[in-house]
């Protein structure tokens, strides 16, 4: 456990030095929090008090926790992996005794930890002060939510790592990244709860894509939508996606390395 701990601490420390960026990011999250919060509350009001089963305090939590989680999951900022592949520096990463996948993963967890303490808490506090957030009934909700956020972070990480690996095959991964940003925003529940979508679409997203695991699952757990009967399976789905996406990273990376060896890169 010594290496993972060192990497987590390194990731935490590195992001702790980006103080101005942290303040700037938190500010932006707060502005978007106000926007989305007012919009969803106004819709709930015109729909007769609640919106697809979320009451106003649940919606407030949904929005502000979502803004905080956005920074923790960080799905819109790409890893520098693609850059390292393109410049060839990745070779030296591959020569180290520890697989770069794990190096990147632990470092990203460290980053997530720092984001949790700063950019997650800021919107939550503002949301509570200006609107009043939902307080969970069941004490189990708190630890389950934390675990669920970690799972969301890992799924987000693995997907971004996969995009970085694409650089072994593509000259430029900007296009792929853009597609990812699009889907991870639209289908994760960031803009609106997926329950407002037609049933078939929401079900399909849950069943075959990792996107709800990035945000919707954790947010539903936090606002106790459907209680533990909904929360536990949602968390289970996240765990499945963590395993699947990390396995995919391993598999793709092996092929990428083989390609590198064959080409004598």
């Amino acid at each position: 456990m010594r290496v993972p701990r060192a990497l987590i601490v390194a990731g935490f420390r590195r992001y702790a030095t980006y103080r101005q960026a942290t303040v700037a990011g938190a500010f932006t999250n707060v502005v978007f929090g106000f926007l989305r919060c007012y919009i969803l509350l106004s819709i709930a009001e015109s729909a007769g008090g609640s919106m697809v089963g979320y009451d106003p305090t649940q919606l407030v939590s949904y929005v502000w926790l979502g803004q905080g989680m956005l920074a923790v999951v960080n799905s819109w900022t790409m890893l520098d992996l693609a850059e390292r592949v393109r410049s060839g520096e990745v070779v030296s990463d591959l020569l180290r005794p520890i697989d770069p996948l794990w190096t990147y993963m632990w470092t990203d967890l460290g980053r997530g930890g720092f984001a949790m303490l700063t950019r997650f808490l800021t919107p939550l506090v503002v949301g509570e002060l200006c609107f009043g957030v939902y307080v969970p009934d069941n004490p189990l909700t708190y630890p389950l939510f934390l675990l669920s956020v970690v799972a969301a972070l890992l799924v987000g990480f693995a997907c971004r790592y996969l995009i970085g690996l694409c650089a072994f095959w593509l000259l430029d991964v900007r296009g792929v990244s853009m597609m990812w940003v699009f889907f991870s925003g639209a289908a994760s529940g960031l803009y609106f709860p997926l329950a407002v979508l037609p049933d078939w679409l929401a079900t399909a997203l849950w069943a075959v894509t990792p996107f709800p695991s990035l945000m919707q699952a954790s947010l539903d757990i936090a606002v106790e939508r459907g209680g533990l009967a909904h929360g536990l399976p949602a968390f289970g789905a996240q765990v499945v996606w963590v395993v699947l996406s990390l396995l995919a990273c391993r598999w793709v990376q092996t092929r990428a390395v083989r390609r590198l060896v064959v080409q004598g890169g």
Partner: protein
Amino acid sequence: MAEFAAKVGIIAHMVRAQVRGQLQYRVSFVMELIGSMMTNALDVATVFVLFSVGGGLGGFGGPNVLLMASLSAVAFSGSDLVVSNVDRLREYVRTGMFDSLLLRPLSSLAQLMAITFALRRVGRFAQAAVLYVIALFVADIDWTVGRVLLAVVAPFTGVVFFSSLFVAGATVAFWWVESGEVANAFTYGGRDFTSYPITMYGGWFRDLFALGLGFGFVAYYPVLALVGLPDPLGVPVWLHWCSPLVAFLAAGLAALFWRVGVRHYRSTGS
């Protein structure tokens, strides 16, 4: 005038060169083109998904909501096409590359716009423009000369307004290179804000964004003027027609800010 035309011609040459360079990365270009169109479709779809939940938005019906959302989309995607990449100024300032713009006999801002121009965003703009025209037909508008003029001018004033914001946001980099996402709160945040009737927002937040920062003049007030509705929040009718003035003011402030910023440029980096 001839002088101005010559300069525009030179900038056009630079833009064409930029596009030729970008077209070398064909796969990425196509994916980004599709991605940007999807993003726009999603923005408008989001408004309608939410519309369907409560059967209205902030007291406005479908045609008017569509008109606001599409006008906002035209304004934003138009400025997105022209200037949104100017936030790359940050890189240019950090590395000192901004020097090379100051060494050429052209406006540094015009050059920055030319070298950060991204053709892939044209899809998004075209899509928004089509939607806006449809919305104008669908909406119940009692056409007068003034309204025809407004319907034509409003997209341009919106583009000018958002462009001013993008430029002002980028200019911050002359003082604060790490300003990062702060500008996004007002540019992308402004796009979200203007996509909905401002009656949906509350308290000081609404007053600040709609009147203080002027976002109400991008889509909400022009649409009220077009369809001839009074403002439920009580803003007088003559103010609904003031968008061009607001855009003009915003552009002036942004240009001034830019000039001050360039003087403050330190040209560090190696």
